[in-house]
C-alpha cells in the first residue's frame, strides 16, 4: 500500500545534492522499518565521525551525507588487499507528506546512523471511544 508515510529512494544523481569533493562517493546500505508511530532508517556509514555528518531535510527530500577521511596516507602506503573503497557516503530519500518533518531526529553510533521520522499526528492510528448516551 502506497501511503503518504512512505520513504522513497531517490534516483536523482547524487552530485546534485552536495558540493562534490574529489574521490568516489559511496551509497550506504540502508534498512527502513515502519513502526506504529514512526519510520526508522538505519544507514551503515563506517569511518564517519559524528561531527562530519550532514543530514538535511529540504522540500520533501532527506539527504544523508557523511564525510570520510582517508584511513592511510596514500603516499606512504602500499596496499596488499583493497576489497573495499573508502570515500564519502551520500544518499537521498523522498519523504512523504505523512512524516512530521519538524520532528525528524538522528543519532549516530559505531558507524550506524539512525534517523527517526515520526508520522504526522493525523495519520496516527487513533482509538475512538464510543460514548454511551
Amino acid at each position, binding site marked *: 500500500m502506497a501511503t503518504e508515510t512512505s520513504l522513497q529512494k531517490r534516483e536523482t544523481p547524487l552530485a546534485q545534492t552536495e558540493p562534490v569533493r574529489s574521490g568516489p562517493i559511496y551509497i550506504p546500505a540502508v534498512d527502513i522499518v515502519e513502526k506504529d508511530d514512526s519510520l526508522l532508517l538505519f544507514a551503515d556509514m563506517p569511518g564517519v565521525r559524528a561531527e562530519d555528518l550532514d543530514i538535511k531535510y529540504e522540500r520533501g527530500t532527506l539527504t544523508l551525507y557523511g564525510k570520510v577521511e582517508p584511513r592511510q596516507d596514500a603516499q606512504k602506503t*602500499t596496499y596488499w588487499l583493497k576489497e573495499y573503497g573508502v570515500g564519502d557516503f551520500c544518499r537521498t530519500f523522498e519523504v512523504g507528506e505523512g512524516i512530521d518533518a519538524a520532528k525528524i531526529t538522528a543519532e549516530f553510533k559505531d558507524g550506524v546512523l539512525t534517523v527517526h521520522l515520526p508520522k504526522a499526528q493525523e495519520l496516527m492510528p487513533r482509538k475512538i471511544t464510543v460514548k454511551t448516551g
Partner: protein
Amino acid sequence: MNLIPWRQKRRREQSGLRPASPLARLHDEMQALFDRFAELTAGWPTDFPLAGAPLLPMNVAETSSHVTVTLELPGVDPADVDISVTGDLLTVRGEKKLDREEKKQDYHLVERRFGSFERTVRLPSTVNPDRIDATFKNGVLTISIEKRSDVAARKIKVRNA
C-alpha cells in the same frame, strides 16, 4: 588476455589464412571468445567485486613501520569481535547482531547484513605477531601490526675460501 603467443597471432592476422585443422579452429574461436570478454570488461572498475564478494571485506596496507588491516564493521559491538593469531595466521571473527527488536515491523528496505563473520589473513614474516594493536572507532576496526626491526636489508660479504 591472450592465449596465442603474440608473434604467432600477428603472423596469422597478416596472412589472413584460416587454420586448416578443426582443433586449431576451435582454438581460434576460444581465443576470440576470450578477447571479446576482455574487451567487454575492459572499462569495468577493478576494485568492485563483481561476484563472490567476501563476507567481510578487508583492506591490508603496509607502511615503513606497520602492516595495517582495516575492516568495516558498522554497528558491531567491539565486545563481540575476537581477534587471534595462530602462527602467522591472523583471524578476525565476530557477530553483527540485529540492532533492534524484531516484532510487528514493516520493512520498507532491507540492505544491511547481519550475522556472524570470520576472516583469516596470512601475515608476512616481516611483522612481529607479538606486537599487535587493535582499535575500534566509528565502525572501523583497525589492526596494526608492527614490522620487525631486524628485517632491514643486510649486506653479506663474500669471503675467499
